């Protein structure tokens, strides 16, 4: 139990430490991060589609 609460505490600290991105958010960086998000959403969509078709089949 203590180990678990230590891990949760650790994760909170990490979230706090890295709350704000340090890289300069130029339009190019913002665009890259947006494209990455869309790319990952697309992949997750494909994975869900595959899961559903496999499950139904």
């Amino acid at each position: 139990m203590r180990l678990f609460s230590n891990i949760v505490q650790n994760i909170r600290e990490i979230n706090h430490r890295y709350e704000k991105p340090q890289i300069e958010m130029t339009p190019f960086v913002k665009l890259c991060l947006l494209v990455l998000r869309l790319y990952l959403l697309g992949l997750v969509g494909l994975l869900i589609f595959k899961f559903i078709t496999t499950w139904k089949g």
Partner: protein
Amino acid sequence: MFWISKTIHYLSRFKRRTILFFAVLGPGVITMVADNDAGGITTYTVTGAKFGLHLLWFLILLGPVAYYVQEMTVRLGAVTKRGHAEAIFSAFGRFWGWFSLSDLVMTDWLTMITEFIGMTAALSIFHFPPLLTVVICWLIMGMMIMSGRYWTWEKIALLFCAINLIYIPAAFMVHPSIRDIAYNSFVPHFPPGGFTNDLFFLLMANIGTTIAPWMLFFQQSSVVDKGLNEKEIKFGKADTAFGAVLTVVVAMVLIIVSSKLLYGLPIEDAAAAARQIMPTSSIIGTLFAIGLFDAGLLGAICISLASSWAFGEVFGWAHSLNQKVREAPWFYAYYFFDLLLAGTVVLIPGAPLVLITLFVQVIATTLLPAALVFLILLLNDKKTMGEYINTTWENIANISIVIIIIVLSTMYGISTLFPNFFSIH
């Protein structure tokens, strides 16, 4: 007299640089040679068995691709003194940080299972039961890190890299035609039959094995753990270039051997290839099996460390191979946990090992583009890199390579999920 003093000056400078190069030698060679892991050996063997020597030119092209990507991790590690996981958390914030770390842990763990599959399959040729193989691997990998010195670990890893070159004598033993090798290496062309689905899949598979997410995390963290600084970047680059040459040589040699001994045979993996070769030449078959075991071991060593370093960096644990187990308990605990978990899965009767092997590629497809894009962005951040920021030429080369890798590895991942998605009619 002037030329004598000048010659002595050049010789002493050459000697000094050679000594420095050998001192820095390690992270690049280990990462690149470990890139030819159990999965890589299978890919090259199948490529040679299916298409003979016709794709040698393509493999040569993959050498510079691997170099340009990995070289960026050397600069980033030497300048920031941070591993890739920590660099992502710091630069892009907690969302991308947690995404990368959790994806890395999943990818690494699944890849580790494939390495154990390769190692157990390789030693089964010598009638080793899987349990014994797994225990041998655990012992070797445990002993390597117990010294509490990065130097010792690195030298043992380099020894395993040297064993990976065991395929080279095998290539000489099959007496390949030098003329054919030269032609297929330097004249780009498609195999007879043209651009087919099989060819397309294998081209993507070869790209997929060239750059894996763990390589970025591993090399950057090892550069940091070794303590490379900005002045040593050029030697770190040379180390990476040397490793890229070795990885291409091993890949070419595998294709040469399999094209000579297995051409036209339906080969599913490297262990099956070794078994198939045994009746023709027991020496080459044995070299093949030893090489496969070594490749799996080297891959597993690097992959488990990549995850442990990443966790240590983010959670703030002591995370150096220069620290003993009692000084960095969580770092080593995670390392052993990873090893035990991956090894145990292989021993479970009826575990879905084929499904895991396919799933690795899909999961890697979700992490690799993000890790590569972060790398490019960080190398272009003046605040992070200072004078070591990417030059225009480096950006042209690196961005083109990264785009090609992302497109092809994504296609590979998708075609693993949907085999007919990119069918050529």
